[in-house]
């Protein structure tokens, strides 16, 4: 019994070691190629457990299937209008078909080199088809930078497919967009000029706005005073109307009423600090000319 268990165990160990010779795993992040005496015979693109003849008959070669980055150095080229432009692009790619990859570029660093030169060509070609004004423009609707990048991506994908590299281009982008060193001087001059004119515009606008705010307030003042004046007039009219009801009472003897009113008025008009020049024929100054001829009222009835 004991011996059987030991035998099974030993057999298991040998089977395991045997499997190790003929089996291999391909991970999710890998692709593999099985080569018999150096010639590729099988391409593996799905993860899992695979078998082959033991070495040195069959050999396996693995490739990383994950996204890889290739950065292309700064590249100065010209746009359609012969204006210089400097771009730095990068490419994200992955190995899609290990067999093709193995046959054409063979290694990742070779692939990187090929991609660099392809991308440079594609870049020069595509950028040369566009005016500088399509990269940047004061009118945002005319900016085509995104489209230009998409065009480069399409071009590069096609070139890579045509070359049978077994590579899939995931994306391509411009990570630096620059201009010639001498051109920056001109840009600075222009920026200064733009800014100076903006400065003037800002001041003018501020002044105009300030003036408008004040004028607004003044016109509001006038408006409000006019409204108040109108209301005041209505109030006065109310007063005059209310006063009028008393005139009816006065109409009992309107002449006497007017006499009283005149007296009232003259008292008010001739207030303080007045110099009077009066003739003597006005009562009571006639007294100054001499005594009046008076008779006691009871003595002689008129």
């Amino acid at each position: 019994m004991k011996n059987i268990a030991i035998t099974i165990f030993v057999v298991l160990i040998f089977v395991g070691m045997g499997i190790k010779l003929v089996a291999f795993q391909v991970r999710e992040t890998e692709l593999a190629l099985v080569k018999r005496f150096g010639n590729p015979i099988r391409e593996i693109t799905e993860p899992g457990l695979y078998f082959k003849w033991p070495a040195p008959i069959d050999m396996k070669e693995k490739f990383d299937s994950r996204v890889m980055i290739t950065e292309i150095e700064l590249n100065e080229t010209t746009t359609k209008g012969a204006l210089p432009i400097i771009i730095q692009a990068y490419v994200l790619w992955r190995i899609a078909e290990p067999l093709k990859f193995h046959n054409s570029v063979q290694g990742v660093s070779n692939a990187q080199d090929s991609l660099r030169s392809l991308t440079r060509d594609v870049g020069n070609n595509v950028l040369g088809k566009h005016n500088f004004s399509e990269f940047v423009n004061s009118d945002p609707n005319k900016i085509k930078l995104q489209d230009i990048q998409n065009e480069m991506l399409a071009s590069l994908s096609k070139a890579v497919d045509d070359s049978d590299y077994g590579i899939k281009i995931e994306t391509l982008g411009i990570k630096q967009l620059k201009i010639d060193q001498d051109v920056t001087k001109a840009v600075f001059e222009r920026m200064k000029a733009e800014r100076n004119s903006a400065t003037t515009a800002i001041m003018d606008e501020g002044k105009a706005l300030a003036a408008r705010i004040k004028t607004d307030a003044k016109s509001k003042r006038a408006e409000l005073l006019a409204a108040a004046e109108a209301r005041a007039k209505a109030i006065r009219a109310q007063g005059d109307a209310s006063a009028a009801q008393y005139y009816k009472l006065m109409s009992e003897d309107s002449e006497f009423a007017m006499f009283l009113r005149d007296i009232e008025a003259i008292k008010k008009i001739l207030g303080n600090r007045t110099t009077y020049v009066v003739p003597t024929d006005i009562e009571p100054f006639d007294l100054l000319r001499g005594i009046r001829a008076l008779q006691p009222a009871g003595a002689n009835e008129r």
Partner: protein
Amino acid sequence: MTGKSQDETKELQSQTAGEPSGNQLDAAGKSLSEALRISFIALKVIMFALVLFFLASGLRKVESGEVALVLRFGEIHGEADKRILKPGPHWVLPYPIEEIVRIPVERTVNLAVDSFWYAETEAERLAAAAGKKFRIKQSLNPVKDGYCITRSARGSEIASAGSDYNIIHCKWQLTYKIRDPEPFFRNIFVREIKPGESHTDVIDESINPLLKDLVEDSVVTAIVNYTIDQVKFEEVAKVTIHIRRLLQDKLDEIGSGIEVVSMQLTRSTWPRQVDQAFQASVAAGQASQQLKREASTEAQKILSVTGGPVAEELLAALKDETVSEADKEQLWSQLAGDAREIIGQAKAYRQRVVANAEANAQYLHTLLPEYRKRPELVLKEIYLSAMEEIFANADEKFVIQRSEDAKATEIRVLINRDPSLKSKSGKSGNSETEEKK
């Protein structure tokens, strides 16, 4: 476990030692068989330990903040939500059958992107820190200096097509985390972890170059659509959202499983070469704001003097037909300032005129019976008492005799203007000198 096995071994040994010695084997054979037995037992124990060790090697711990994927023969294993192991201890089939890949999903990572900043020499940096002035070169080197190109403002007459752009320097910070472990594992390159290296450091180190490229791409692509003022001042949030959207799109496009948590503009400036013009512009902006503020204060003052705090409300109400009369009256009653005074005067007038009329009527009414009886006396009484009053207040009185012949009499009286009265116009020499004093 190993200790326990050793105990068993000892027990077995003692049993063997205690066996009766009455068999046919000679001493040598006996000792050989003994040795064989012991070695078999030892082998068995080792086997047992190995199996245990093999099984125990399948125990794995997933730390908090992480999840793990199980690879069976290299392929992600499991169905639906069982594909991802949550934090805690787990048992998987031992290597090489299954293995787990741990991925930190809750950790947010910051990545600073400074590639759009100008190159500063050490001397320049020191001078800038000390606030000293120094000469800077008048151009930007495309290799050393980083910058972004922004569009010019619309309607700028200075810029012509093909040259209507500005330059801005900016620094960004990306905060990201891994949202989807599965596509992340499948698509994003993470190099092998060497012994002694931190798992998360290796992940960061592997993905940062990729993220940096994508951030730079998004910034360049987005920022050309904005003016320098929009990027620097007015629409920072909008620009940032635009960049973030482009970046997330790219990340999704390559199936990275990475999520942008935030994108931040940490610093931005116009080129040092044009600093003066920009500073002047900023100052003008502030001065202009100041003018506006002053004007507003003055306007407020004018309105307040005119009508008090309700001035504007009342004006609006007067123009608005939907406001009820009662509300308008309410506002009128709260009115202050000059407008209130005008109305106050009118109200005083109303009161006065009514009171006067009433008093006059009353007066007339009281006098009327007497007047009707003795009109002449009453009239004279009233007339003379008025005269008394008037002349009592007089400064000077001249009484002159009117001759029968009007031409004969002519008197000249020099009357001085009352010096205490205010001059009516500023034309008089005296008042002018007074004013000057």
